[in-house]
């Protein structure tokens, strides 16, 4: 189904530590999205990119999260100082356009102790 690759699958961090996860979109997909899915199945859009440029991000992402999609390297999402409330499944998706079918990776499950 999807060819989006995410690493690592699991990540365990202490509060205040940095947490970094990576995503390789499907080949030929210029648009990348990051979502957070919490234990209550609530999905939150975090940020999206078209090639290397940020299209939109929410406030939370602007303040504690940093993300980039450098050319010829995996995209990454990093939490600068992890909090317990950041424990969630982080999903990366890619698509052919900003309003097109999205394909998801298997996710990185972050646990903040």
């Amino acid at each position: 189904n999807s060819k989006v690759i995410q690493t690592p699958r699991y990540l365990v961090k202490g509060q205040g530590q940095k947490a970094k996860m990576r995503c390789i979109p499907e080949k030929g997909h210029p648009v990348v999205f990051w979502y957070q899915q919490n234990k209550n199945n609530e999905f939150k859009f975090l940020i999206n990119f078209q090639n290397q440029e940020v299209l939109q991000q929410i406030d939370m992402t602007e303040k504690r999260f940093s993300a980039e999609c450098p050319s010829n390297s995996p995209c990454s999402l990093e939490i600068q100082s992890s909090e317990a409330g950041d424990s969630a499944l982080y999903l990366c998706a890619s698509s052919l356009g900003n309003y097109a079918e999205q394909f998801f990776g298997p996710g990185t499950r972050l646990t903040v102790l």
Partner: protein
Amino acid sequence: GDKVKQSPSALSLQEGTNSALRCNFSIAATTVQWFLQNPRGSLINLFYLVPGTKENGRLKSTFNSKESYSTLHIRDAQLEDSGTYFCAAENNYAQGLTFGLGTRVSVFP
């Protein structure tokens, strides 16, 4: 979950039976995607819909943008259909997909 309401929240089906899942939208959805999330967390694409109907094997989905809803029909349920089904809508105002809270489906022999 307020903008995209999924029902029911959980469903138990006997193998071989049929059922329907529904999403109601309080946003002006332009496209809808349906996913099945397996126990490992992977989201499997089932349907991508502009207004209309699509069918794939035992699954059939409809998106009615005028009445703001989408349905997913499962025919002849099999054990491997178990998992959590999510619908997600796109609209012209929000970036990314707006997801419902899912329908947890359990198929038993």
